[in-house]
């Protein structure tokens, strides 16, 4: 096996129970070296639990997890040597400044790259002298991101890293992902925002109720990328069902709602057009609606 196709992360049938709650239910996840892997799922699907298992912070009830070929529960120290981690909910020491927290976290991993540290603080516009008590959620997030990126790693585990960042800072974050990816690092990025994952990731795994329900490249998951249409004032709504690439049409009087494949958007738009139209709403594919439409029949509950 050569380095390019070797798996950095490999889990098989991962199960994790917290009391009577099953957080992970036979999760299979495979992340190849050098790829940016999107880990997509609604709140409570088990994304953070998976990342904690991969770090050996919690022990799986059954199943196996391997990171760099190592068992993170049995040998956390060796596993962590090349990992940078940003938790979903960053909590810092209230009486330490942001700069001190960055130095502590990078120091435990062997020390920050001084230039990188300076550049990152500048780019993320962080005031490192402020005590963490006074930081907003976004600023705490920046501290964790700077600490993660200020020292090169082979694997970046990022749990909803851009939550709390404004669009400018989000752009800075994306540049950093590009940079470490160019350097050959592997990135596992969890998110519940489909568009974010689309823009950054090579491959995607979708998780729901602790199980991986889809995995593949963006192209392979094309069928998930459907745009939602709502059209009102149609003379004969039923005719829309004949348009290419439309799915799940529902009709209510003169109104119609349906999803359309990205490849057929041009044809759909042309097909909708008629003089009497009084309203048109087009919504980008949202993960929540995808889950509602594609997976609500599996497992019954679990979808809000």
């Amino acid at each position, binding site marked *: 096996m050569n380095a390019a196709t070797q798996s950095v992360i490999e889990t098989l049938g991962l199960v994790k129970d917290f009391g009577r709650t099953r957080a992970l239910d036979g999760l299979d996840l495979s992340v190849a070296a050098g790829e940016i892997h999107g880990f997509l799922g609604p709140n409570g699907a088990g994304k953070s639990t998976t990342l904690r298992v991969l770090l050996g912070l*919690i022990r799986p009830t059954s199943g196996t997890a391997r990171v760099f070929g190592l068992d993170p529960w049995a040998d*956390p120290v060796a596993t962590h040597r090349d990992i940078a981690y940003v*938790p979903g909910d960053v*909590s810092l020491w209230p*009486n*330490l400044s942001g*700069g001190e927290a960055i*130095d502590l976290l990078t*120091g435990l991993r062997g020390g920050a790259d001084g230039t990188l540290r300076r550049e990152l603080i500048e780019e993320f516009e962080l005031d490192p002298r402020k005590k963490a*008590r006074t930081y907003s959620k976004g600023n705490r997030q920046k501290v964790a991101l700077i600490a993660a990126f200020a020292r090169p790693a082979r694997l970046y585990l990022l749990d909803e890293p851009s939550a709390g960042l404004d669009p400018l800072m989000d752009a800075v974050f994306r540049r950093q992902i590009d940079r470490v990816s160019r350097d050959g690092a592997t990135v596992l990025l969890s998110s519940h925002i489909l568009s974010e994952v689309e823009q950054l990731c090579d491959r995607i795994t979708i998780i729901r109720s602790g199980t991986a329900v889809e995995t593949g490249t963006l192209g392979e998951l094309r069928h998930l990328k459907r745009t939602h249409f709502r059209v009102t004032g149609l003379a004969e709504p039923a005719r829309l069902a004949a348009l290419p690439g439309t799915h799940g049409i529902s009709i209510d009087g003169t109104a119609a709602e349906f999803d359309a494949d990205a490849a057929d958007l041009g044809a759909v738009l042309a097909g909708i057009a008629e003089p009497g139209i009084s309203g048109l709403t087009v919504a980008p594919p949202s993960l929540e609606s995808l889950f509602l439409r594609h997976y609500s029949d599996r497992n019954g509950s679990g979808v809000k």
Partner: protein
Amino acid sequence: MSGVVRLALFQARRDRVTLPVWILGITVLGFATSSAVATQFGDEAAQAAILTLAASNPAFLFLRGLPDGTGVGAVVFFQGYAFTAVLAALMSTFLVVRHTRTDEELGRAELLGSVPLPRAASVAAALLLGAAANLLLGGFVAAGFVAAGLPVPGAVWAGAAVGAVGVSFVGLAAVVAQVLPSGRSANGAAAALVGAAYLIRGIGDALGTPAADLLHVSSAWPSLLSPIGWGQRSRPFTSPDLFPLLVLSTAALVLGGAALLIRRRRDVGASLLPQGDGRERAGAGGTSFVGLAWRLQRSTLAGWCVGAAALGAVAGVLGPLVTETVSSVAPLKELISRLVPGGQAGLIDVFITALLGVAGVFAAAAGIQAVLRMRAEEAEGRSELLLAAPVSRARWLGANLFIAAASAALVCATAGAAAALGLGVSGTPTGAGGSLVPAALAHVPAALVFLAAAGLAFAAAPRLSIPLGWGMLAAGLVLGEFGELFGLPVWLQDLSPFRHSSAMPVEPFDPVGAWGLAVVAAALAGLAAYSIRRRDLTA
């Protein structure tokens, strides 16, 4: 107003486990003390003997309070009041800070600030809840005394005295919460004020004047500076006096009013002592577990050291003074020469020994607090960030245990050094001066057992570690301090690590006890390091 009441009820719901534990715990302690006194000092001769002994021993007066005549009730009040009052005060300060500054620091106050209620509503609600909790506490304590067979009027007065001390600390804590920026610092400062109140009362009582019959002692003026001293002046079982309780209630009203006024005038999250900026880079050692543990612990440790220094200074400066006062009373002088070998110099040693023993308790508490800091780190999600680094959990635990042990040693050494310094300043030739630091350090092994046990609790049962850690200290104190009074079997008393510390300088150093404690501590720490590897990180 109804909004404030609803808020107070909501706070009470959050405290539905905590407050009953405090109230019932204090009640049980009061009940146990009264039953024990009734059995052990049932007749008047036995009561007179213990009171006379106390009146002749300033260490007794310092730790317990003032003898106030015979009668089971009076002896119970003398034996148990000061500790009960300290517990009521701590219950009150933690309650108020929890619902004011801590809520504000964690952003919950902001959410509440958006509802149509006055700005100071949560402070008012916390004051209300604090008053209600102390009313309930007073009632329960009184009921416990009655159940133990004490006269009803005296029991009610005694309950009122304990409740009044609690209420005064409700007001005090509300002000502290306006001054300091974080829940942790406000809790620390308020608890330090409780300690100061106990200490100042102790000084006043130790300097007190014994009556001719040696069954009563009246305190010196410093006791008037302490709410705990005021509560004691109500003299529930001998000649009940309402005035001290009125003083305490008025103080509570004034302090509570001041807190409300400050809160109405300040921004949410702001404090009278503002939060300054920190350093841009971590200092030397700021990138290691030991450095972090030290950084997190140092301000709390400074507080414990100030307490220990005050204790030591009291022992050194006041020891000679109070023993001189006592010895100048002719009948006492005779008693002392019979009881204490070495006469007045021996009495000073007894006083110093007792206070160094208290410093040993401080050391154990400082160590436990340092260890339990890890639980806060874990519960608040910060250990997740730390342990994602290539460092083992055992190292994290080890670094914290190390800092905890060093804290305990530092607290003891501070008390011993302050006592030696105090003796030097007061110019007393006892010969004990130079050896007081080692005498204080003799209490470190017991502290090590407590902090290692807290470490094991954290490693094995993280969610229970905080009640377990402090509960073990409370159990050790009760077994060590009250075990004899309660007539508990010796083997049970001997479970308390405090019982195996050498009470220097009165007793010689006991290497077997010290090494025994050290070995137990090491075994507990090893078990903790083994267990922590075997569990999930738990929020």
